[in-house]
């Protein structure tokens, strides 16, 4: 890999890593929310 190819690879890799971290974080928020509802057994909506 020459300097230019490494630069291109790094830009692509950085972008993919950012997207992956964002997806994992959003996934964890959704999982924690849904699992909390499951653990509460639906009574959370009883008021």
């Amino acid at each position: 890999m020459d300097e230019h190819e490494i630069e291109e690879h790094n830009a692509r890799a950085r972008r993919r890593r950012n997207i992956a971290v964002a997806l994992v974080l959003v996934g964890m928020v959704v999982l924690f929310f849904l699992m909390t509802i499951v653990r509460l057994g639906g009574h959370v909506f009883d008021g």
Partner: protein
Amino acid sequence: MALVDVYAGPQQRIADVGDYFALLKPRVMSLVIFTGLAGIVAAPGHIHVLSAFTALLCIAVAAGASGALNMAYDSDIDAIMARTATRPIPMGHIAREEALMFGWALSIASVTIMGLFINLLAAGLLAFTIFFYVVVYTLWLKRSTAQNIVIGGLAGALPPAIGWAAVTGSLSFAPLVMVAITFLWTPPHFWALALFRSDDYARAGVPMMPVVAGKTSTRRQIFAYTLLLLPAGLAPAVLGFAGPLYLAAVGAISAWFLFAATKVLFERDETKEPAAKKLFFVSIAYLFVLFAALIAERLIGIAPFGAWL
């Protein structure tokens, strides 16, 4: 300006998402997910589908974390062996320290989530599995004894019990039979690999059985473990834990396994080891068929699961 000057220089290739994924040993992870799923599906009682998904996710992430830690601690060996030289750390794509942080962070996260959302027994078993694979197998046994994969195989055998514990919050005889099957399956599987990769292991100084005891002894031991494994594999059907589909499928593949192990016993081509290569793939098919049969019987409702309680 001075700061820019300090950091100017030839650029290094940074790790891509694929490098981190490779660090998780995805092929090993898929087998762990499958056996863990078998434990969840086979267990008596009800579990919410999202809880089952979360438990399986924790098992998968913990398996990946163990793989990353194994690659970090074994990076010196991996760099020497042809089979592992293209892994992300020997290739210089990920720093060893970064892999360690990644592995330990995923380990802590998976055990914590299992404990918070599933139950403490499943989380405890998961933590024990990571500890056993990383500390007992990777850091201790792998470099010190030819029995490394025999004892270390316990870590890879535990996922069905973790899956079972996630559903029931307890353990019983049935999940321990599943653990015993995978435990007895490990030596023939890994020693078949070690037979056709023995030069690699010898060069890296890893005391695998063919390197320490020789190939003839390894062939005999593979055959001996096969004779122990096959009855254990049929035990769920004999003891009434599994039904006719399981008996037929596992009976057929056991015959193939025995045939392949017998060919290894009498193999004379010590350069190419074709029989060992065949046994390696037959052993993967064996474990897949066995757990697939367990899952299938449960899903189509023909498994005699009253006996499991």
